[in-house]
């Protein structure tokens, strides 16, 4: 049993089931990110943990205590909202101390905690201002201060960075991560941004259509996706997914793919993988960084194979050049070194690192291992 246990929790609005049986268990100090496109049920799940939405069936427990029917105020949680939800009529100080006041803490105990949190978040000079007089980043800090000062068991973050501009978002992301490392609190964090999910979390639950598609560490989610949705959703640029057929080859089996212009090529799998599935139509998944130019390939990999492919487009991005070809009718992007001499229209050797290859069933979209 973990620190936060979600057991078979579901949520329905009338006949519509927005969250199917969900099981997640995390330990104290973990940073769980719920990630998925809008409407996937992630915010609903967060609101259920907060107690702002009822659970239709199942159970949510914090520290072994069932939270079903417990009021939000009595769950010892704190929440940071997307819009910050600062009380407009109160000063920053009033905002931060409101929760403690509601819990009946005397004023002399509140003051040092406000000072401590304000110091931690560097908002001491803002304490007497109203939220309307603050910038987006400052409001964000105040919202976090309001949550921190309560010293809750679990912090809930509902897309806290999505209202900030791009640069500030990256800064605050780092700040949240630092804060988590410093304080070691348990956090549940909702976002639709897969980069936030990968950078912040110790564990990720990728959600889609009311189901948890995969629960795992960032590395597991990234390298070992359970299905095509997870593979395509996580990572930027997203994973290349293209049709192939498994055929027998000299050292086991290979993926036979259709290149642009009618040719086919065979790319052998690493270490005799996929031998059990010969003859099967599959979807092959390779991340852009596993498709490189010859010299940029991973030197530790035992299974790099060169295939001459026609180049459709090159996209120099400063640190890398993204090179696009077509395999099986799909655009496939490779991540080449920045100074590689490749031009659109010519044929160029692409290096496929098959150790990183993942294989999916085209119909069920599930992983084939």
């Amino acid at each position, binding site marked *: 049993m973990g620190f936060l246990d979600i057991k078979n929790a579901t949520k329905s609005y009338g006949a519509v089931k927005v969250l199917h049986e969900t099981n997640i268990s995390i330990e104290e100090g973990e940073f769980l990110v719920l990630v998925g496109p809008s409407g996937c049920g992630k915010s609903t799940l967060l609101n259920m943990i*907060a*107690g*702002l939405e009822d659970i239709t069936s199942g159970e949510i427990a914090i520290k072994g205590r069932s939270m079903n029917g417990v*009021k*939000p*105020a009595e769950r010892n*949680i*704190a*929440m940071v*909202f*997307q*819009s910050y*939800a600062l*009380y*407009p*009529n109160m000063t920053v100080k009033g905002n931060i101390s*409101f*929760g403690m006041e*509601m*819990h009946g803490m005397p004023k002399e105990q509140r003051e040092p905690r406000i000072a401590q949190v304000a110091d931690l978040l560097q908002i001491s000079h803002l304490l007497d201002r109203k939220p309307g007089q603050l910038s987006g980043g400052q409001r964000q800090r105040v919202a976090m201060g*309001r949550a921190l000062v*309560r010293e809750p068991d679990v912090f809930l973050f509902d897309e806290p960075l999505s209202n900030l501009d791009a640069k500030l978002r990256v800064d605050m992301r780092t700040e949240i991560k630092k804060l988590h490392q410093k304080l070691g609190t348990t956090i549940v964090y909702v976002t639709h941004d897969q980069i936030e999910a990968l950078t912040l979390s110790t564990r990720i639950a990728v959600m889609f259509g009311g189901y948890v598609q995969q629960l795992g560490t960032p590395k597991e989610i990234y390298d070992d996706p359970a299905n095509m949705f997870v593979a395509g959703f996580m990572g930027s640029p997203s994973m290349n997914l293209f049709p192939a057929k498994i055929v027998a080859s000299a050292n086991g089996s290979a993926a036979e793919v259709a290149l642009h212009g009618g040719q086919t090529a065979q790319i052998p799998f690493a270490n005799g993988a996929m031998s059990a599935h010969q003859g099967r139509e599959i979807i092959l998944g390779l991340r852009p960084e596993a498709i490189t130019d010859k010299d940029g390939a991973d030197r530790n990999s035992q299974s790099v194979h060169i295939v001459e492919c026609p180049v459709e487009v090159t996209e120099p991005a400063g640190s890398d050049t993204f090179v696009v070809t077509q395999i099986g009718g799909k655009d496939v992007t490779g991540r080449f070194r920045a100074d590689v001499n490749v031009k659109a229209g010519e044929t160029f050797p692409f290096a496929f690192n098959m150790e990183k290859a993942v294989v999916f069933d085209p119909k069920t979209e599930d992983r084939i291992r």
Partner: protein
Amino acid sequence: MSASSSASTGNGIARFILYTLLALFCVYYLLPLYVMVVNSLKPLSEITSGGMMSLPETLTFAPWQSAWSQAQVGVEATGLRPYFINSIQMVVPAVALSTLLGALNGYVLTKWPFRGSTILFGLLLFGCFIPFQIVLIPMARMLGLMGLAGSVPGLIFVHLVYGIGFSTLYFRNYYAAFPTELVRAAQIDGAGFFTIFWRILLPSSGPIAVVCIIWQFTNIWNDFLFGASFSDFDSQPMTVALNNLVQSSTGVKEYNVHFAGAIMAALPTLLVYIVAGRYFVRGLMAGSVKG
């Protein structure tokens, strides 16, 4: 160069016409007030000799004094003072209660919706548009049953019932634009139903509260029908007393006193507009754009 100067000349003429028109309208609208003020400061003889429009030859405040405390209203020569007090006693609680209940209704309807809350709101809205005359007899019966017939509290009750529809409409639309996340944040912070209302929503309701207060105050203060129907001699509001003063069929018609009384009856609403008027427009805009 010449084009721009001719354009500015054309502009000047247009502006001259515009301002002249505006000035004319202004005079047109202010004329009745002028007549009232001027005649309330004249001895009766000056009015009866035909000088309605002229300025007073002898300035006198006697008509005001008379209207306030001496004139014959109904059967007694009390002036309008007791009725003015009646009106104040009626309008203050009625406005305060209907505004507060409207705010509470708006809060519940937007932040704590329940099954049928939309229909309930629809019915409340419908209540705004029921003609007053229809409810006179049932209301009289109700007030009788409650033991409030012919009293100031009875009038307060009637105006409260009629006011809730509009005040709910105002506050519901205002709170619909109020972020629900704030309510949720307060819930997590441990605030209860009424604490959220008092500490979070009400302090942010200034503009719409002003709109609501002006609206209710004007309507209730100026109401004649309910005042005439549901009051006794000792609980009549200002409007009814003014009518009795003007309509009294005994003695000479003291027009100067009538003018003074009419101004007195209009002053409180005027005062409310002057004090809170600028919020009125602002609040109406806020409600309409965001709601």
